[in-house]
Protein backbone atom coordinates (compact mmCIF):
# COMPACT_ATOMS: atom_id res chain seq x y z
CA UNK A 1 0.00 0.00 0.00
CA UNK A 2 1.44 3.33 -1.02
CA UNK A 3 1.99 6.07 1.56
CA UNK A 4 -0.70 8.75 1.74
CA UNK A 5 -0.45 12.39 2.73
CA UNK A 6 -1.82 11.45 6.14
CA UNK A 7 1.20 9.19 6.79
CA UNK A 8 3.70 12.01 6.24
CA UNK A 9 4.37 15.05 8.43
CA UNK A 10 1.34 17.36 8.82
CA UNK A 11 0.80 20.10 6.24
CA UNK A 12 -1.12 23.29 7.02
CA UNK A 13 -2.71 26.07 5.01
CA UNK A 14 -1.19 29.12 6.69
CA UNK A 15 -2.26 31.95 4.41
CA UNK A 16 -4.82 32.73 1.71
CA UNK A 17 -5.20 35.57 -0.78
CA UNK A 18 -7.33 36.50 -3.76
CA UNK A 19 -7.70 38.88 -6.61
CA UNK A 20 -11.41 39.15 -7.36
CA UNK A 21 -12.70 36.89 -10.14
CA UNK A 22 -14.04 39.23 -12.83
CA UNK A 23 -14.91 39.57 -16.48
CA UNK A 24 -11.98 39.90 -18.89
CA UNK A 25 -10.31 43.29 -18.54
CA UNK A 26 -7.10 45.07 -19.56
CA UNK A 27 -5.49 44.22 -16.20
CA UNK A 28 -2.26 42.28 -16.78
CA UNK A 29 -2.19 38.78 -15.30
CA UNK A 30 0.87 39.88 -13.31
CA UNK A 31 -1.28 42.39 -11.39
CA UNK A 32 -3.91 39.72 -10.69
CA UNK A 33 -1.39 37.14 -9.48
CA UNK A 34 0.72 39.51 -7.39
CA UNK A 35 -2.37 40.78 -5.55
CA UNK A 36 -3.28 37.24 -4.52
CA UNK A 37 0.28 36.23 -3.59
CA UNK A 38 0.97 39.37 -1.52
CA UNK A 39 -2.35 38.91 0.31
CA UNK A 40 -1.53 35.25 1.05
CA UNK A 41 1.98 36.10 2.33
CA UNK A 42 0.55 38.86 4.56
CA UNK A 43 -2.18 36.56 5.81
CA UNK A 44 0.37 33.87 6.72
CA UNK A 45 2.78 36.36 8.28
CA UNK A 46 5.50 34.93 6.08
CA UNK A 47 8.00 36.97 4.05
CA UNK A 48 8.72 36.08 0.42
CA UNK A 49 12.32 34.93 1.05
CA UNK A 50 10.96 32.29 3.48
CA UNK A 51 9.05 30.51 0.67
CA UNK A 52 10.96 27.41 -0.46
CA UNK A 53 8.99 26.38 -3.52
CA UNK A 54 6.33 27.81 -5.84
CA UNK A 55 3.57 26.15 -7.87
CA UNK A 56 1.79 28.20 -10.53
CA UNK A 57 -1.52 26.84 -11.83
CA UNK A 58 -2.85 28.06 -15.17
CA UNK A 59 -4.73 26.54 -18.06
CA UNK A 60 -5.25 29.39 -20.51
CA UNK A 61 -2.23 31.70 -20.20
CA UNK A 62 0.68 30.92 -22.53
CA UNK A 63 3.85 29.07 -21.50
CA UNK A 64 5.69 29.92 -18.26
CA UNK A 65 3.89 32.90 -16.70
CA UNK A 66 5.36 32.21 -13.25
CA UNK A 67 8.69 33.95 -12.91
CA UNK A 68 7.59 36.89 -15.02
CA UNK A 69 5.10 37.53 -12.20
CA UNK A 70 6.96 36.31 -9.10
CA UNK A 71 10.20 38.23 -9.84
CA UNK A 72 8.38 41.38 -8.73
CA UNK A 73 8.32 40.05 -5.16
CA UNK A 74 12.10 40.38 -4.98
CA UNK A 75 15.19 38.38 -5.94
CA UNK A 76 14.77 34.79 -4.85
CA UNK A 77 15.78 31.82 -7.05
CA UNK A 78 13.25 29.32 -5.66
CA UNK A 79 12.03 26.42 -7.83
CA UNK A 80 8.89 27.27 -9.83
CA UNK A 81 6.73 24.65 -11.50
CA UNK A 82 3.73 25.33 -13.72
CA UNK A 83 0.73 23.04 -13.53
CA UNK A 84 -1.86 22.66 -16.30
CA UNK A 85 -4.63 20.18 -15.60
CA UNK A 86 -7.68 21.83 -17.21
CA UNK A 87 -10.24 22.99 -14.65
CA UNK A 88 -8.38 21.06 -11.96
CA UNK A 89 -5.06 22.90 -12.53
CA UNK A 90 -5.21 24.72 -9.18
CA UNK A 91 -6.23 21.57 -7.29
CA UNK A 92 -3.40 19.58 -8.87
CA UNK A 93 -0.87 22.31 -8.01
CA UNK A 94 -2.13 22.32 -4.41
CA UNK A 95 -1.80 18.53 -4.14
CA UNK A 96 1.78 18.51 -5.39
CA UNK A 97 2.80 21.42 -3.18
CA UNK A 98 1.33 19.55 -0.20
CA UNK A 99 3.30 16.45 -1.12
CA UNK A 100 6.55 18.43 -1.30
CA UNK A 101 6.02 19.97 2.13
CA UNK A 102 4.76 16.70 3.66
CA UNK A 103 7.82 14.87 2.32
CA UNK A 104 10.10 17.43 3.97
CA UNK A 105 11.58 18.72 0.72
CA UNK A 106 10.20 22.18 1.49
CA UNK A 107 8.97 23.85 4.67
CA UNK A 108 6.89 26.58 3.09
CA UNK A 109 5.36 26.54 -0.39
CA UNK A 110 3.29 28.96 -2.43
CA UNK A 111 0.45 27.80 -4.65
CA UNK A 112 -0.92 30.48 -6.93
CA UNK A 113 -3.51 30.10 -9.66
CA UNK A 114 -3.79 32.87 -12.22
CA UNK A 115 -5.49 33.00 -15.60
CA UNK A 116 -7.12 35.16 -18.20
CA UNK A 117 -9.59 33.92 -20.83
CA UNK A 118 -7.74 33.13 -24.05
CA UNK A 119 -8.54 30.79 -26.92
CA UNK A 120 -6.92 27.41 -26.33
CA UNK A 121 -7.49 24.13 -28.14
CA UNK A 122 -8.02 20.70 -26.65
CA UNK A 123 -5.31 18.15 -27.31
CA UNK A 124 -7.89 15.39 -27.69
CA UNK A 125 -8.99 16.99 -30.95
CA UNK A 126 -5.50 16.28 -32.32
CA UNK A 127 -5.91 12.52 -31.83
CA UNK A 128 -7.68 12.35 -35.21
CA UNK A 129 -10.48 10.20 -33.87
CA UNK A 130 -13.61 11.48 -35.58
CA UNK A 131 -16.85 12.37 -33.87
CA UNK A 132 -20.41 12.64 -35.06
CA UNK A 133 -21.25 15.91 -33.37
CA UNK A 134 -18.50 17.16 -31.00
CA UNK A 135 -18.55 20.54 -32.72
CA UNK A 136 -22.23 20.85 -31.72
CA UNK A 137 -21.68 19.89 -28.08
CA UNK A 138 -20.15 22.68 -26.00
CA UNK A 139 -19.61 21.95 -22.27
CA UNK A 140 -22.99 23.52 -21.41
CA UNK A 141 -24.67 21.12 -23.83
CA UNK A 142 -22.86 18.12 -22.35
CA UNK A 143 -24.21 19.12 -18.93
CA UNK A 144 -27.66 19.96 -20.34
CA UNK A 145 -27.80 16.35 -21.56
CA UNK A 146 -26.82 15.17 -18.06
CA UNK A 147 -29.54 17.39 -16.58
CA UNK A 148 -32.12 15.80 -18.88
CA UNK A 149 -30.95 12.34 -17.83
CA UNK A 150 -30.96 13.36 -14.13
CA UNK A 151 -34.51 14.67 -14.47
CA UNK A 152 -35.63 11.42 -16.12
CA UNK A 153 -33.91 9.35 -13.40
CA UNK A 154 -35.15 11.27 -10.36
CA UNK A 155 -38.26 13.15 -11.46
CA UNK A 156 -36.58 16.52 -10.80
CA UNK A 157 -37.83 19.46 -12.88
CA UNK A 158 -35.88 22.22 -14.62
CA UNK A 159 -37.03 24.55 -11.81
CA UNK A 160 -35.78 22.13 -9.13
CA UNK A 161 -32.28 21.94 -10.63
CA UNK A 162 -32.17 25.74 -11.02
CA UNK A 163 -32.52 26.08 -7.22
CA UNK A 164 -28.79 25.34 -7.03
CA UNK A 165 -28.20 28.66 -8.81
CA UNK A 166 -30.51 30.53 -6.40
CA UNK A 167 -28.46 29.25 -3.43
CA UNK A 168 -25.07 29.82 -5.02
CA UNK A 169 -25.85 33.34 -6.26
CA UNK A 170 -27.10 34.13 -2.73
CA UNK A 171 -23.79 32.89 -1.29
CA UNK A 172 -21.77 34.73 -3.93
CA UNK A 173 -23.60 37.99 -3.18
CA UNK A 174 -21.79 37.94 0.18
CA UNK A 175 -18.35 37.26 -1.30
CA UNK A 176 -16.30 40.34 -2.29
CA UNK A 177 -14.07 38.17 -4.50
CA UNK A 178 -16.95 36.66 -6.53
CA UNK A 179 -17.48 37.53 -10.18
CA UNK A 180 -21.28 37.63 -9.71
CA UNK A 181 -22.23 39.37 -6.44
CA UNK A 182 -25.97 39.65 -6.86
CA UNK A 183 -28.74 37.65 -5.24
CA UNK A 184 -31.16 36.25 -7.85
CA UNK A 185 -34.71 34.94 -7.65
CA UNK A 186 -35.72 31.67 -9.30
CA UNK A 187 -37.75 33.67 -11.83
CA UNK A 188 -34.75 35.83 -12.70
CA UNK A 189 -32.62 32.74 -13.20
CA UNK A 190 -35.19 30.87 -15.29
CA UNK A 191 -36.04 33.99 -17.29
CA UNK A 192 -32.45 34.61 -18.38
CA UNK A 193 -30.88 33.95 -21.74
CA UNK A 194 -31.56 30.38 -22.93
CA UNK A 195 -28.41 28.34 -23.47
CA UNK A 196 -29.17 24.62 -23.87
CA UNK A 197 -31.82 22.29 -22.49
CA UNK A 198 -33.16 23.84 -19.27
CA UNK A 199 -30.05 25.96 -18.73
CA UNK A 200 -30.13 29.73 -18.78
CA UNK A 201 -27.01 31.86 -18.45
CA UNK A 202 -27.20 32.24 -14.64
CA UNK A 203 -27.12 28.45 -14.26
CA UNK A 204 -23.74 28.34 -16.00
CA UNK A 205 -20.37 29.45 -14.65
CA UNK A 206 -18.89 32.66 -16.00
CA UNK A 207 -15.31 32.06 -17.16
CA UNK A 208 -13.39 35.21 -16.34
CA UNK A 209 -10.01 36.26 -14.97
CA UNK A 210 -8.62 36.37 -11.45
CA UNK A 211 -6.13 34.87 -9.05
CA UNK A 212 -6.04 32.89 -5.83
CA UNK A 213 -3.05 31.95 -3.68
CA UNK A 214 -2.37 29.88 -0.59
CA UNK A 215 0.71 29.44 1.54
CA UNK A 216 1.17 25.93 2.84
CA UNK A 217 3.69 24.97 5.48
CA UNK A 218 4.91 22.42 7.97
CA UNK A 219 4.60 23.21 11.69
CA UNK A 220 8.35 23.53 12.11
CA UNK A 221 8.57 25.75 9.04
CA UNK A 222 6.08 28.15 10.60
CA UNK A 223 7.56 28.04 14.13
CA UNK A 224 11.05 28.73 12.82
CA UNK A 225 9.68 31.96 11.39
CA UNK A 226 7.85 32.84 14.56
CA UNK A 227 4.39 31.92 13.23
CA UNK A 228 2.04 29.83 15.37
CA UNK A 229 -0.69 27.42 14.28
CA UNK A 230 -3.58 29.50 15.70
CA UNK A 231 -5.10 30.25 12.29
CA UNK A 232 -3.61 27.29 10.42
CA UNK A 233 -5.85 24.64 8.88
CA UNK A 234 -4.65 21.05 8.46
CA UNK A 235 -4.67 19.36 5.07
CA UNK A 236 -6.12 16.03 6.21
CA UNK A 237 -6.06 14.22 2.89
CA UNK A 238 -5.45 14.51 -0.83
CA UNK A 239 -6.73 12.29 -3.62
CA UNK A 240 -6.35 12.52 -7.38
CA UNK A 241 -7.81 10.11 -9.95
CA UNK A 242 -8.69 9.94 -13.64
CA UNK A 243 -11.69 8.35 -15.22
CA UNK A 244 -12.25 4.65 -15.91
CA UNK A 245 -14.18 3.08 -18.73
CA UNK A 246 -17.73 3.31 -17.35
CA UNK A 247 -20.85 1.51 -18.53
CA UNK A 248 -22.63 4.87 -18.76
CA UNK A 249 -19.80 6.78 -20.38
CA UNK A 250 -21.69 10.09 -20.19
CA UNK A 251 -21.69 10.13 -16.36
CA UNK A 252 -17.92 9.97 -15.97
CA UNK A 253 -17.67 13.10 -13.82
CA UNK A 254 -20.07 11.74 -11.19
CA UNK A 255 -18.48 8.26 -11.16
CA UNK A 256 -15.01 9.77 -10.87
CA UNK A 257 -16.19 12.13 -8.14
CA UNK A 258 -17.57 9.22 -6.15
CA UNK A 259 -14.33 7.25 -6.32
CA UNK A 260 -12.02 10.19 -5.58
CA UNK A 261 -14.16 11.46 -2.69
CA UNK A 262 -14.26 8.00 -1.10
CA UNK A 263 -10.46 7.81 -1.19
CA UNK A 264 -10.03 11.30 0.32
CA UNK A 265 -12.60 10.72 3.06
CA UNK A 266 -11.12 7.32 3.96
CA UNK A 267 -7.66 8.90 4.26
CA UNK A 268 -9.05 11.61 6.51
CA UNK A 269 -11.05 9.00 8.46
CA UNK A 270 -14.24 10.98 8.00
CA UNK A 271 -17.76 10.03 6.92
CA UNK A 272 -19.53 12.28 4.37
CA UNK A 273 -22.00 13.33 7.07
CA UNK A 274 -19.16 14.81 9.15
CA UNK A 275 -18.34 17.46 6.53
CA UNK A 276 -19.42 20.99 7.45
CA UNK A 277 -18.48 22.81 4.22
CA UNK A 278 -17.95 21.60 0.67
CA UNK A 279 -16.71 23.53 -2.34
CA UNK A 280 -17.42 21.53 -5.50
CA UNK A 281 -17.19 21.90 -9.27
CA UNK A 282 -20.62 23.43 -9.88
CA UNK A 283 -19.86 24.87 -13.31
CA UNK A 284 -23.46 23.97 -14.20
CA UNK A 285 -26.34 23.53 -11.75
CA UNK A 286 -26.86 19.85 -12.46
CA UNK A 287 -23.30 19.13 -11.35
CA UNK A 288 -24.07 20.10 -7.77
CA UNK A 289 -27.05 17.74 -7.46
CA UNK A 290 -25.10 14.95 -9.12
CA UNK A 291 -21.99 15.44 -6.98
CA UNK A 292 -23.62 15.80 -3.55
CA UNK A 293 -25.17 12.40 -4.24
CA UNK A 294 -21.93 10.93 -5.60
CA UNK A 295 -20.05 12.21 -2.53
CA UNK A 296 -22.55 10.61 -0.16
CA UNK A 297 -23.77 13.92 1.28
CA UNK A 298 -27.27 12.63 0.56
CA UNK A 299 -28.84 9.43 -0.80
CA UNK A 300 -29.17 8.94 -4.55
CA UNK A 301 -32.01 10.99 -6.00
CA UNK A 302 -32.45 13.04 -2.80
CA UNK A 303 -30.39 16.12 -3.67
CA UNK A 304 -33.40 18.22 -4.73
CA UNK A 305 -35.58 17.53 -1.66
CA UNK A 306 -32.58 18.27 0.58
CA UNK A 307 -31.74 21.42 -1.39
CA UNK A 308 -35.35 22.56 -0.87
CA UNK A 309 -35.10 21.86 2.87
CA UNK A 310 -32.03 24.10 3.05
CA UNK A 311 -29.67 21.23 3.95
CA UNK A 312 -26.94 22.67 1.68
CA UNK A 313 -27.40 26.31 2.72
CA UNK A 314 -24.96 28.18 4.92
CA UNK A 315 -26.26 27.20 8.35
CA UNK A 316 -27.78 23.99 6.98
CA UNK A 317 -26.54 20.44 7.43
CA UNK A 318 -23.51 21.03 5.17
CA UNK A 319 -22.84 24.34 3.41
CA UNK A 320 -22.22 23.54 -0.27
CA UNK A 321 -20.39 26.22 -2.29
CA UNK A 322 -20.52 28.89 0.44
CA UNK A 323 -18.17 31.00 -1.73
CA UNK A 324 -20.86 31.08 -4.42
CA UNK A 325 -19.16 28.21 -6.21
CA UNK A 326 -18.21 28.27 -9.85
CA UNK A 327 -21.71 29.49 -10.77
CA UNK A 328 -21.45 32.74 -8.80
CA UNK A 329 -17.85 33.17 -7.64
CA UNK A 330 -16.69 32.22 -11.13
CA UNK A 331 -14.27 29.88 -12.83
CA UNK A 332 -11.12 31.57 -14.09
CA UNK A 333 -9.74 27.97 -14.48
CA UNK A 334 -6.17 28.13 -13.06
CA UNK A 335 -7.22 29.87 -9.81
CA UNK A 336 -10.46 27.97 -9.17
CA UNK A 337 -9.14 24.97 -7.24
CA UNK A 338 -6.80 27.18 -5.19
CA UNK A 339 -9.68 29.53 -4.42
CA UNK A 340 -11.72 26.62 -3.05
CA UNK A 341 -8.92 25.89 -0.57
CA UNK A 342 -8.93 29.59 0.37
CA UNK A 343 -12.68 29.58 1.01
CA UNK A 344 -12.61 26.41 3.11
CA UNK A 345 -9.68 27.76 5.13
CA UNK A 346 -11.62 30.97 5.75
CA UNK A 347 -14.67 28.95 6.86
CA UNK A 348 -12.68 26.68 9.20
CA UNK A 349 -10.96 29.69 10.72
CA UNK A 350 -14.39 31.22 11.40
CA UNK A 351 -13.44 34.30 9.38
CA UNK A 352 -16.05 34.12 6.60
CA UNK A 353 -18.15 36.99 7.99
CA UNK A 354 -21.69 37.14 6.52
CA UNK A 355 -21.30 33.79 4.76
CA UNK A 356 -19.81 31.95 7.75
CA UNK A 357 -21.16 28.42 8.28
CA UNK A 358 -21.49 28.14 12.07
CA UNK A 359 -19.13 25.74 13.80
CA UNK A 360 -17.31 24.63 10.63
CA UNK A 361 -14.54 22.15 11.53
CA UNK A 362 -14.15 19.95 8.43
CA UNK A 363 -14.29 20.92 4.77
CA UNK A 364 -13.87 19.28 1.38
CA UNK A 365 -12.71 20.78 -1.92
CA UNK A 366 -13.54 19.03 -5.21
CA UNK A 367 -12.66 19.76 -8.82
CA UNK A 368 -13.03 17.83 -12.02
CA UNK A 369 -11.24 18.75 -15.21
CA UNK A 370 -11.70 17.64 -18.79
CA UNK A 371 -9.82 14.49 -19.54
CA UNK A 372 -11.36 13.64 -17.11
CA UNK A 373 -9.39 14.12 -13.93
CA UNK A 374 -10.62 14.68 -10.39
CA UNK A 375 -9.07 16.01 -7.18
CA UNK A 376 -10.46 15.99 -3.66
CA UNK A 377 -8.86 17.53 -0.57
CA UNK A 378 -10.15 17.41 2.99
CA UNK A 379 -9.19 20.23 5.35
CA UNK A 380 -9.69 20.23 9.13
CA UNK A 381 -9.40 22.61 11.98
CA UNK A 382 -6.51 21.28 14.13
Amino acid at each position, binding site marked *: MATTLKDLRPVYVAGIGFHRYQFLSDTPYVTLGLAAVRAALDDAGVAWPAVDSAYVAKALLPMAPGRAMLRHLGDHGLPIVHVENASASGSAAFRHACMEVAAGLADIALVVGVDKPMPVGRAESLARIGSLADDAIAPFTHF*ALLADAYAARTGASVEDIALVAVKNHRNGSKNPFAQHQKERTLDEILGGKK*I*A*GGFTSLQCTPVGEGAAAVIIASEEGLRRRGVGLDRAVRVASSAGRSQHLYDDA*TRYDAMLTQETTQIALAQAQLAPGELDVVELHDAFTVEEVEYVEAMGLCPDGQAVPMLKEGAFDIGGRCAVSPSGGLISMGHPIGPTGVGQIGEITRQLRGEAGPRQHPGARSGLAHMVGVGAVCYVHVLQKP
Partner: protein
Amino acid sequence: MSDPDLLKPTLYRRAGSAARPEPPALLGGACACGHVFFPLQSYGCERCGGTDLQPRALTGAGRLLASARVHLHAGKGREAPFTVGSIRLEDGPIIRTLIEGGETRLHPGAAMVAVLAPVTDPQGSARLDLRFMAEA
Protein backbone atom coordinates in the same frame (compact mmCIF):
# COMPACT_ATOMS: atom_id res chain seq x y z
CA MET B 1 -13.40 3.28 -51.36
CA SER B 2 -15.32 5.77 -49.26
CA ASP B 3 -18.64 7.23 -50.39
CA PRO B 4 -18.02 10.78 -51.70
CA ASP B 5 -21.55 11.85 -50.85
CA LEU B 6 -21.08 11.29 -47.13
CA LEU B 7 -19.81 14.16 -44.95
CA LYS B 8 -17.92 11.82 -42.57
CA PRO B 9 -17.37 8.55 -44.44
CA THR B 10 -14.97 7.23 -41.78
CA LEU B 11 -17.79 7.27 -39.21
CA TYR B 12 -20.79 5.77 -41.02
CA ARG B 13 -21.92 4.19 -44.30
CA ARG B 14 -25.12 3.96 -46.31
CA ALA B 15 -25.47 0.21 -45.88
CA GLY B 16 -26.85 -1.17 -42.63
CA SER B 17 -25.50 -3.88 -40.37
CA ALA B 18 -26.11 -7.62 -40.49
CA ALA B 19 -28.60 -7.29 -37.62
CA ARG B 20 -30.54 -4.43 -39.24
CA PRO B 21 -29.92 -3.81 -42.92
CA GLU B 22 -32.17 -0.75 -43.15
CA PRO B 23 -30.60 2.10 -41.12
CA PRO B 24 -27.08 3.25 -41.99
CA ALA B 25 -24.43 1.49 -39.90
CA LEU B 26 -21.88 3.25 -37.67
CA LEU B 27 -18.26 2.27 -38.26
CA GLY B 28 -17.07 1.10 -34.86
CA GLY B 29 -14.58 -1.45 -33.68
CA ALA B 30 -14.18 -4.45 -31.44
CA CYS B 31 -11.18 -5.66 -29.46
CA ALA B 32 -10.13 -9.25 -28.96
CA CYS B 33 -11.11 -8.72 -25.28
CA GLY B 34 -14.74 -8.17 -26.29
CA HIS B 35 -14.87 -4.40 -25.88
CA VAL B 36 -17.02 -2.77 -28.57
CA PHE B 37 -16.46 0.91 -29.28
CA PHE B 38 -17.26 3.81 -31.60
CA PRO B 39 -15.67 5.26 -33.63
CA LEU B 40 -13.01 2.92 -34.95
CA GLN B 41 -9.48 3.78 -33.84
CA SER B 42 -6.19 1.90 -33.95
CA TYR B 43 -4.27 3.40 -31.00
CA GLY B 44 -5.26 0.74 -28.48
CA CYS B 45 -8.21 -0.69 -26.57
CA GLU B 46 -9.54 1.55 -23.80
CA ARG B 47 -10.39 -1.50 -21.71
CA CYS B 48 -7.40 -3.89 -22.02
CA GLY B 49 -4.77 -1.83 -23.84
CA GLY B 50 -4.54 -4.42 -26.60
CA THR B 51 -3.93 -3.40 -30.19
CA ASP B 52 -5.84 -6.21 -31.90
CA LEU B 53 -8.72 -3.92 -32.90
CA GLN B 54 -11.00 -4.95 -35.76
CA PRO B 55 -13.61 -2.87 -37.62
CA ARG B 56 -17.22 -3.69 -36.72
CA ALA B 57 -20.32 -2.20 -38.33
CA LEU B 58 -22.65 -1.16 -35.51
CA THR B 59 -26.39 -1.14 -35.95
CA GLY B 60 -27.77 2.35 -36.45
CA ALA B 61 -30.41 1.98 -33.76
CA GLY B 62 -30.63 2.42 -30.02
CA ARG B 63 -32.44 4.06 -27.11
CA LEU B 64 -32.39 7.75 -26.20
CA LEU B 65 -30.71 8.45 -22.85
CA ALA B 66 -31.09 12.24 -22.94
CA SER B 67 -31.61 15.13 -25.32
CA ALA B 68 -31.14 18.88 -25.21
CA ARG B 69 -32.32 21.67 -27.47
CA VAL B 70 -29.33 23.98 -28.02
CA HIS B 71 -30.25 27.67 -28.18
CA LEU B 72 -26.77 29.20 -28.23
CA HIS B 73 -23.92 28.03 -30.44
CA ALA B 74 -20.73 29.91 -31.20
CA GLY B 75 -19.24 27.58 -33.83
CA LYS B 76 -19.42 28.50 -37.50
CA GLY B 77 -21.45 26.48 -39.98
CA ARG B 78 -24.17 25.45 -37.58
CA GLU B 79 -27.13 27.62 -36.67
CA ALA B 80 -28.94 27.25 -33.35
CA PRO B 81 -31.44 26.04 -32.42
CA PHE B 82 -30.73 22.36 -32.96
CA THR B 83 -31.11 19.25 -30.85
CA VAL B 84 -28.44 16.83 -29.64
CA GLY B 85 -28.91 13.54 -27.86
CA SER B 86 -27.14 10.74 -26.05
CA ILE B 87 -28.08 7.35 -27.44
CA ARG B 88 -27.12 3.88 -26.29
CA LEU B 89 -26.67 1.84 -29.45
CA GLU B 90 -28.09 -1.67 -29.59
CA ASP B 91 -24.47 -2.88 -29.81
CA GLY B 92 -23.56 -1.22 -26.49
CA PRO B 93 -21.59 2.01 -27.04
CA ILE B 94 -23.13 5.36 -26.10
CA ILE B 95 -22.90 8.08 -28.75
CA ARG B 96 -23.66 11.79 -28.84
CA THR B 97 -25.33 12.88 -32.04
CA LEU B 98 -27.56 15.45 -33.69
CA ILE B 99 -31.26 14.63 -33.59
CA GLU B 100 -33.51 15.10 -36.59
CA GLY B 101 -37.01 16.26 -35.67
CA GLY B 102 -35.90 17.39 -32.22
CA GLU B 103 -38.27 20.38 -32.19
CA THR B 104 -40.75 18.24 -30.31
CA ARG B 105 -39.87 16.99 -26.85
CA LEU B 106 -38.17 13.62 -26.88
CA HIS B 107 -38.37 11.33 -23.89
CA PRO B 108 -35.50 9.26 -22.53
CA GLY B 109 -36.07 5.64 -23.43
CA ALA B 110 -37.45 6.42 -26.91
CA ALA B 111 -36.37 4.07 -29.71
CA MET B 112 -34.07 5.92 -32.10
CA VAL B 113 -32.84 5.10 -35.56
CA ALA B 114 -30.04 6.47 -37.79
CA VAL B 115 -30.84 8.42 -40.95
CA LEU B 116 -28.78 10.29 -43.52
CA ALA B 117 -29.78 13.94 -43.75
CA PRO B 118 -28.82 16.43 -46.50
CA VAL B 119 -26.29 19.07 -45.35
CA THR B 120 -23.94 21.54 -47.00
CA ASP B 121 -20.23 21.01 -46.34
CA PRO B 122 -17.84 23.93 -45.61
CA GLN B 123 -17.00 24.15 -49.33
CA GLY B 124 -20.68 24.58 -50.22
CA SER B 125 -21.25 21.08 -51.66
CA ALA B 126 -24.33 18.99 -50.90
CA ARG B 127 -23.54 16.00 -48.66
CA LEU B 128 -25.27 13.55 -46.35
CA ASP B 129 -24.60 13.51 -42.61
CA LEU B 130 -25.73 11.05 -39.98
CA ARG B 131 -28.55 11.97 -37.63
CA PHE B 132 -30.82 10.00 -35.36
CA MET B 133 -34.57 10.34 -35.16
CA ALA B 134 -37.35 8.76 -33.17
CA GLU B 135 -38.30 5.45 -34.73
CA ALA B 136 -41.75 5.51 -36.31
